[in-house]
């Protein structure tokens, strides 16, 4: 499953993870706008950073394939499998759940789970088939998502 994951597959999954993050943080920021200015600003910032990560993955895919728009044929099946095997929550699910959230801390709890899943996945990707530059990218992303997790942890503790 993850242990024999190919470079390009990991990048496609990374792209989807980051896209999911953008949607989630954007929806969460919007939800928080009228309630908590500080929390909304942090969430917007996180959405922007996930956007940057998304662009980094696009660039990496371009390096590997020479085509910015190329997809990976088997990726939908692999992602479905990763969701079914519990590596990730279903993509798009957390952004949809935002509407029904009533407590601020619930948003941060959802974000924390997603960031932890991403960090776990990037560790797996770094240790699977990534080349040196791929490993560097994953290590960098682990640092980035860890920073997000720290911020979210602070907010969670503040609001819980």
């Amino acid at each position, binding site marked *: *499953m*993850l*242990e024999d994951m190919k470079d390009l597959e990991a990048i496609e999954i990374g792209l989807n993870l980051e896209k999911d993050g953008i949607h989630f943080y954007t929806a969460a920021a919007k939800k928080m706008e009228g309630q908590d200015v500080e929390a909304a600003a942090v969430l917007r910032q996180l959405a922007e950073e996930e956007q940057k990560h998304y662009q980094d993955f696009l660039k990496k895919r371009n390096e590997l394939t020479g085509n910015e728009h190329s997809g990976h044929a088997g990726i939908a099946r692999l992602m479905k*499998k990763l969701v*079914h*095997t*519990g*590596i990730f929550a279903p993509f798009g699910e957390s952004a949809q759940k935002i509407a029904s959230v009533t407590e601020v801390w619930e948003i941060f709890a959802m974000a*924390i*789970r997603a960031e*932890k*899943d991403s*960090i*776990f996945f990037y*560790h*797996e990707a770094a240790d699977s088939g990534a080349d040196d530059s791929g490993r560097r990218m994953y290590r960098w992303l682990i640092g980035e998502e*860890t920073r997000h*997790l*720290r911020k979210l*942890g*602070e907010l*969670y*503790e503040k609001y819980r």
Partner: protein
Amino acid sequence: MSELFQANEILKTAIRIEENGIRFYSEAAAATHNSAVKEMFESLAEQEKRHLHDFTALQKEVASQEARESYPGEQEEYLRMLANLHVFTDTEQFNQVMSRAGNELEVITFAQGVEKDSILFYLEMLDFIPESNRSMVQKLISQEREHVRRLGGLKLDLIRQKKK
């Protein structure tokens, strides 16, 4: 932060995580009627017992050493936060899941979250552990990663069975 979150304290948290893991897998094994799920949970409980034994031995070894150098405050704070956010430190959440222990898919998903939380905690704690003991912790991390995969495989089997 005035108080150092030193190796001894970190290992106490690791021990607590493993103790709760044993309790969780044992209770979940007792609650299910699915033989494959029961077998998996019992096997994971056994493995967590070995981890508990290893961490306890490591803690004794570390406790016998003199206080070592201090660590960067930021990383220390992050580790403390990971401990606070570990699902096994949230008794309420634990009890909620156990009250629905008959729902195997939900329990497996919870278990995977627990294993991922443990992996992140152990990865971060590596820097706080004496270098000579790090390979032992790395081995435990590999085993916890294997748990996530095994639980994933079991989850997939259950989903396929339900579809039949």
